[in-house]
């Protein structure tokens, strides 16, 4: 990528035009989102949905917060706890699978990975029964358990690929010095894992935050995460649209901020999801 002085040929102009159109496609819904969220309910009219509100109604956000604020708290707790568990286990798994390969390790890993792709509908009923039999149904802990377990394949995958780039020579040198499994993890692997943890935590946090099906089936009113609360807000009887729109902004904000501030790591997580064995 050499920085070249730009000459505006017709081709380049056309290119910018296409970029602009594409950006429009991606941003127009955002404009409409804010335009609607900032209107007062009686100013919302399908025919004038494109107009920017004459009077900004920030109250929508307060009302939406009243309705889903508690659910945002649930989501935060849920995402943080299950992400931390999944990340720690994933790191250890990745280390074991990449640096201490045993016969059948790859097959085992492939079998673990399959869990990342299954449609959750195919496990929903037994999962529900299992959580119930643990006595965790309806509480946030049942949901945390489910997210932690189904998060394991992707966290293991990302760490395994991350550690694969660590030279085996480093590990071998440590073994010659007499270090064992745990010493090597502590002294060699863990200290260089920070970027891996950042990628995994961002990715898993986003996934858990955004998940819906488990949220809809494993919780009751007090422990519902924000995705479900938002769907209630939008699916209600008389929809005054400023409320779900403001709610959507609130619900999207945490992951959006993470994405904007730490985009580089986010993209790495994204690319890791496409399974390079």
């Amino acid at each position, binding site marked *: 990528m050499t920085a070249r002085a730009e000459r505006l040929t017709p081709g380049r102009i056309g290119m910018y035009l296409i970029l602009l159109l594409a950006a429009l496609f991606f941003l127009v819904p955002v404009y409409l989102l804010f335009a609607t969220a900032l209107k007062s309910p009686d100013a919302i009219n399908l025919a004038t949905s494109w107009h920017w509100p004459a009077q900004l109604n920030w109250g929508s956000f307060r009302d939406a917060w009243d309705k889903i604020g508690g659910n945002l708290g649930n989501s935060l707790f849920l995402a943080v706890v299950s992400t931390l568990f999944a990340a720690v286990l994933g790191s250890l798994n990745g280390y074991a699978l990449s640096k201490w390969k045993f016969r059948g390790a790859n097959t085992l890993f492939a079998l673990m990975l399959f869990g990342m792709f299954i449609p959750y509908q195919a496990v929903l009923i037994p999962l*529900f029964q299992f959580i119930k039999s643990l006595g965790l149904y309806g*509480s946030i802990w049942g949901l945390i358990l489910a997210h932690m377990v189904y998060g394991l394949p992707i966290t293991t995958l990302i760490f395994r690929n991350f550690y694969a780039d660590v030279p085996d020579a480093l590990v071998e040198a440590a073994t010659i010095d007499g270090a064992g499994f745990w010493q090597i993890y502590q002294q060699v692997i863990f200290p260089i894992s920070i970027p891996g943890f950042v990628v995994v935590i961002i990715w898993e946090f986003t996934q858990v935050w955004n998940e819906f099906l488990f949220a809809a089936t494993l919780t009751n009113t007090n422990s519902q995460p924000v995705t479900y609360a938002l769907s*209630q807000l939008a699916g209600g009887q*008389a*929809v005054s649209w400023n409320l779900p729109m403001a709610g959507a902004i609130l619900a999207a904000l945490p992951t959006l901020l993470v994405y904007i501030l730490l985009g580089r790591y986010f993209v790495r997580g994204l690319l890791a999801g496409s399974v390079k064995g």
Partner: protein
Amino acid sequence: MKKALLLALALATAGSASAAGKLEIFSWWSGDEGPALDALVKLYNQKYPGVKVDNATVSGGAGTNAKAVLKTRMLGGTPPDSFQVHAGQELIGTWVVANRMEDLSSLFKSEGWAKVVPADVIKLISSKGGIWSVPVDIHRSNVMWYNPATLKKYGVTAPKTWPEFLSTCTALKAKGMQAPLVVGESWTQQHLWENVMVGTLGAQGWENLWNGKLKFTDPRVVGAFTTFGKVMDCANKDASGLSWQQASDRITDGTSAFNVMGDWAAGYFTTTKKLAPGTGFGWTTAPGTSKVFVMLADSFGLPKGAKNRAETLNWLKVLGSKQGQDTFNPLKGSIAVRTDSDLSKYSVYSKSAATDWKHSKIVGSMYHGAVAPESFTSAFGALIDQFVASKDSKGATAAAQQLADKAGIGK
């Protein structure tokens, strides 16, 4: 680690269970219907101060979302203390047959409700020798709404029968109205369907459909389906995108002439839209049903294993009391189940409905859970969708009969 979690959780749940004076009620009343429930909760708290009422609502058209959530909770073994359910088969066909409800006969006896609640309603909420829920309100399904100004502008009157409706529809179309009838998302079409059926088959025919004496495949029913198909030809094409309120808006703004909707629409027109009954909006019985009251009722029951049984029984007592019913219903726009209610508290529309309640033949609604179990109604929506697209009356009635057999209707 996991053990510690389980332990922490066990402690947490034990803590909440031992807290005295709690009551969790589960309903789908939010938004417009919220204030009526709030008033009822307030009344309950006046009578039983110190009880913390946890009002869990799950919104979504006519309770469709709430029912799914309720099931996961019941299956999960954490029933709410009392939950909203349509009186009749919706409660009986799902919860009573599965032995999950407590019999409330003794409550009805001790509170003397048998004398003030119409026998038809008692019959509807009874099965296997027990009474299973306390109805709190009565709504009417067979109401057709219109805007008097629109009818005047186009020079038509509200039709009295479905064939008459179809000719009015043709006339309106000829005068440039694209959709004389407005319908909304799937359930409002089923709501319309049941009113076309009652209006075409008559009250007796409708009852026979649900006790198995009249098969769906009977030529009369096939004919009624065909009429329904023609009625749908009068309707708007963007139906599935509209909530019932958005559909009602089309009456207000004159886009469409008629809307068949339950009488909760009266509350929407007067309270939300600030229209005067009779001039801002008008109503009549759905075509062909002038002597019939197609009813539905919301009710609350007592699930087995409810955590706060005593508080729940008190809640049910408030629901069935005269004061409770007359607090709740005027706000909700429904009428009391009790025949001794104080009509002076009620709206213009409700007064007319209460009069009809006493003088009409009463039958139950299909979509709203009175005459058919959920296993029927929830699959019936797809059947209606398909029928509206294909207009194949023979196929639809054959499918409906299979569905009825499977759901055990008429057994």
